[in-house]
């Protein structure tokens, strides 16, 4: 529990909150602007607005935001705190899960901001009924958050092992490219094992912007959430094993 408290204290003063704020706000602004400018072509509905906002956010920018956040979370350890961390009583698994929990909290904050920003933008800048925001939008945000857990776990592992800030982000970028390729190419195996592909699928689930995106129901979400949980567990186990056996300072 002390490890968790320590991570929460670090989060309070972290500059990572800028990423948490900027990425969803940008997605909302750009998506809404596109929605308004193409009003003649797009259906004027909350689902259509959400689709415009989340399309490139889910395919590309959310994964990169997660990678940047995880690099920021581990940066403080790479700046000379490792010996103290390793000499402390906390187990390796506690350290790894605390970092994962901190990353999860930050991504959850991004998702909340995204939904609230969508509601504000739709209510103030368009003719959409503010009281008609469908619950499916919250459902989509939660499913995306659960899929993002695998990306958080993988990026946390990479950021733990590599001292470089940008190297894990560069690897995530390659994962994004592979994930988008697997998603659009409908390559069954790859779009289940690449975390960024799972995230892309979750973010576009039930979307009116992407055809054949799958439905936001149990049969549509389980094939995404279950692999995501398995990948998360694998990454936690691997991170713990590496931390126990290797000097990562």
């Amino acid at each position, binding site marked *: 529990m002390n490890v968790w408290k320590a991570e929460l204290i670090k989060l309070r003063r972290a500059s990572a909150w800028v990423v948490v704020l900027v*990425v969803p706000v940008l997605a909302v602004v*750009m998506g809404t602007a596109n929605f308004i400018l193409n009003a003649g072509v797009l259906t004027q509905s909350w689902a259509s607005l959400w689709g415009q906002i989340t399309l490139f956010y889910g395919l590309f920018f959310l994964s990169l935001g997660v990678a940047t956040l995880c690099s920021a979370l581990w940066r403080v350890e790479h700046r000379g705190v490792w010996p103290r961390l390793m000499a402390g009583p906390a187990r390796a698994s506690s350290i790894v899960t605390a970092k994962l929990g901190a990353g999860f909290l930050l991504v959850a904050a991004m998702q909340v901001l995204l939904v609230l920003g969508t509601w504000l933008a739709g209510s103030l800048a368009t003719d959409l009924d503010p009281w008609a925001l469908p619950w499916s939008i919250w459902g989509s945000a939660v499913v995306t958050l659960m899929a993002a857990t695998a990306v958080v776990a993988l990026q946390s592992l990479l950021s733990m092992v590599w001292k470089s800030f940008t190297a894990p982000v560069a690897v995530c970028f390659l994962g994004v490219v592979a994930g988008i390729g697997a998603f659009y190419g409908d390559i069954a195996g790859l779009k289940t094992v690449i975390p960024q592909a799972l995230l892309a699928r979750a973010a576009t689930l039930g979307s009116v912007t992407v055809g054949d995106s799958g439905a936001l129901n149990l049969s549509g979400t389980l094939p995404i959430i279950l692999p995501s949980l398995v990948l998360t567990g694998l990454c936690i186990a691997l991170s713990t094993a590496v931390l126990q056996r290797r000097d990562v300072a």
Partner: protein
Amino acid sequence: MSGRSTSLPGFGKAVRLEYAKMRRLRTSLVLGAVLLATILFGTMQLFDADHRARINEPNTMHWEFLLLTGYSSTKALFMPLLAAVLASRQVDIEHHGNGWLRTSMFGVTPGRLCTVKLLALMPLVVLSTVVEMSVLVLASRAAGATTPLPWVQWLWYGAVVVIVTLGVVGLHLWLAARVESQLVGLGVGVLGGFLGFFSMLMPPWFAHLTPWGYLAAGLPYQLSPTGDAPLIAIPLPWGSMALFCCVMLGVLALARVRLDRVEI
């Protein structure tokens, strides 16, 4: 008295030193990965069997769409992040190794050092752009495209990509030198990706507001207003690129002078 020269290291020596640093930083690996990703994304439409069947039809306008929706959109997404990562890695080595002070002792001030870094990255940016566009053309020919390539528009846009990329890399070098936290540089890179990509969808005036938007402002095609053809070629936007060059040169010159006056 020794006849040995005590002149300050010239640009040539400084640039060679930057290449030595790049080998350790694996800059070519990062560039290669982004190059591969750009090619894969840019050629996505070639994987569509329907598109390949219609590739030589006049209404398909394969070369025009490849430039407008394939290559330029991909560059708008990827280039800002690449610039941020390259500049950040190139400058971080100075922050950690106290390189600013050490090179200043030899007369290579921080502003001059950033200029050297930009000059060192220039051939790599040019080479990667040439390779990307060449592979797109070769892949299209392999997919069965036999219509003539609009050389003028493609060469123009290649130059636009190089100029805009170097301008953005220059800005990121200054930013990375002033702010040690790489989070800021990467954050600006993500912001640039948003702005660059959405500049493709916004009205032309929006594209002129930010450096990343000039990948859209420099496009030699636009959607046809009359519907006779999907796209039309427009007069090459010399004015937009001249504006970009003037503003960026001024900003980077000012940034260089400022870097020489602050302690890093």
